[in-house]
């Protein structure tokens, strides 16, 4: 066990359509919310972390806009999993005495009009010419993985639908969730086919919003009077097309999960709650397999019959409604995933979905596209 760091403040912006709010303003409001949650002031922040959803040259523009005085920054961009990775980066920076109080912000406003294009579209991107002509829409790239998973393992659309059903059961209790209606397997299957085999209700929401998190060194965390949420283990991985050795049915979670469990020194049965990146229902099924919550190919069976519903199943997941129902700000869901895990560990989730005695949680982020190249980041968080 090396670096010790705690998540001392979190804030999820309530907006889902940010009319009248600039992108930088969203970042700032989220930062203010997380600082207030932690009981810290802007002047306490000496490290800043953001991904490419931050306008401009990330930290250059945002440190100036926010009026920060920092001695460490990091702007690692690995898609929607970026913010999980920022937690690990902040933990390391704190251990190396590069900062004491790390602020992480993320935000987006695709619905309010100003779409933030973080995808690299430069002709210098080596794969661009071999993919762009074919129309590699995000949903299509996940559909390719789902189609192959069904072929290899017999996974069904009904099984995928259970992921959405579970998310909707949680979202009904979240007043800020975009979609609060409880849906059934039949509802999912009856929704329009978008990209075979993924239906409309297999897809996450498109939302504006954002969030922020504060990571602190132990002495500071203990001085704040908040429940102590410690980063116990983490791991990350990048998986791509491997020069043509394309494998669509496993994710980088195989590696990121193993690394996180190894560092944390805990077992799957110890995990009381999991935030699993849910850009699409298939993302959850494959991730649960690759993290080792069930055997490879058995993810479909694992998620059936409400097994992911808090108070019903064995592995309560995404109790805020997740990206499927609550929030997927700017197309990057790693921030709300981490925030809901912190709420669960603090006992601050909605009473209807709070996991009793939640002392150990896992967060998993997937950035990019399962069908071409993606990042995986896993965190194991503990309440002390």
């Amino acid at each position, binding site marked *: 066990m090396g670096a010790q760091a705690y998540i001392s403040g979190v804030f999820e912006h309530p907006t889902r359509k940010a009319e009248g709010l600039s992108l930088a303003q969203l970042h700032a409001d989220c930062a203010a919310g997380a600082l207030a949650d932690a009981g810290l002031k802007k002047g306490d922040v000496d490290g800043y972390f953001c991904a490419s959803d931050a306008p401009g040259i990330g930290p250059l523009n945002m440190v100036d806009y926010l009026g920060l005085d920092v001695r460490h920054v990091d702007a690692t961009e690995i898609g929607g999993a970026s913010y999980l990775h920022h937690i690990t980066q902040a933990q390391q920076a704190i251990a190396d005495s590069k900062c004491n109080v790390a602020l992480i912000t993320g935000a987006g406003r695709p619905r309010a009009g100003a779409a933030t294009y973080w995808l690299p579209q430069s002709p210098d991107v*080596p794969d661009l010419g071999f993919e762009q*002509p074919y129309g590699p829409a995000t949903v299509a790239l996940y559909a390719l*993985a789902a189609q192959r998973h069904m072929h290899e393992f017999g996974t069904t659309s009904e099984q995928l639908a259970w992921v959405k059903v579970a998310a909707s059961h949680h979202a009904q209790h979240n007043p800020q969730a975009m979609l609060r209606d409880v849906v059934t397997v039949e509802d999912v299957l009856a929704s329009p086919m978008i990209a*075979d085999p993924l239906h409309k209700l297999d897809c996450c929401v498109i939302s504006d919003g954002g969030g922020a998190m504060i990571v602190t060194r132990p002495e500071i965390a203990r001085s704040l009077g908040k429940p102590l949420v410690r980063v116990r283990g983490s791991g990350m991985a990048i998986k791509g097309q491997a020069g043509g050795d394309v494998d669509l049915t496993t994710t980088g979670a195989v590696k990121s999960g193993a690394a996180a469990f190894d560092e944390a020194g805990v077992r799957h049965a110890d995990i009381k709650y999991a935030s699993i990146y849910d850009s699409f229902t298939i993302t959850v099924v494959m991730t649960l397999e690759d993290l080792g919550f069930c055997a490879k190919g058995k993810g479909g069976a694992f998620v059936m019959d409400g097994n992911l519903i808090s108070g019903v199943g064995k592995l309560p997941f995404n109790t805020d409604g997740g990206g499927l129902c609550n929030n997927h700000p700017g197309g990057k869901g790693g921030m709300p995933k981490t925030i809901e895990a912190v709420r669960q560990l603090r006992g601050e989730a909605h009473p209807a979905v709070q996991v009793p005695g939640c002392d150990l949680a896992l967060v998993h982020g997937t950035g990019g596209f399962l069908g071409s190249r993606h990042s995986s980041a896993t965190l194991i968080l503990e309440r002390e």
Partner: protein
Amino acid sequence: MTMTKTTRKIPAPTPLEDSRDFWEGAARGELMLKHCEACGRAHHYPRARCPHCFSDRTMWRQASGRGTVYSWTIMRRAPQPYTLAYVELDEGPRMLTNLVGFAPDAIEIGAAVEVVFEPTEGGPPVPMFRPAGHD
């Protein structure tokens, strides 16, 4: 029967220094693949340096243009629906592409396909795949 023909406008790829030969081959109607003299393996998309062993002794060879469908999806809601797929080439690499000339209910994983080149908007044609044995 509706065929999944590609009638949408296809954006032109930009040939780069290490992919120019691929696109010149495409203009001739030839599917070019990179082979590594050091490790003996083919790769796609093409690089100057082998992604498997990192040797720079890579050579262009014309591929057979035959393969099988590894996975597929139809973008149903696009203004002009199209089929995104991975095709496993007989030479080994699996490449992202479009399927054309299939009836939507006839596409299946494992189906035999052959290359066909479709025009782009002001650039070199791009390789797509149709059912094998197409006349």
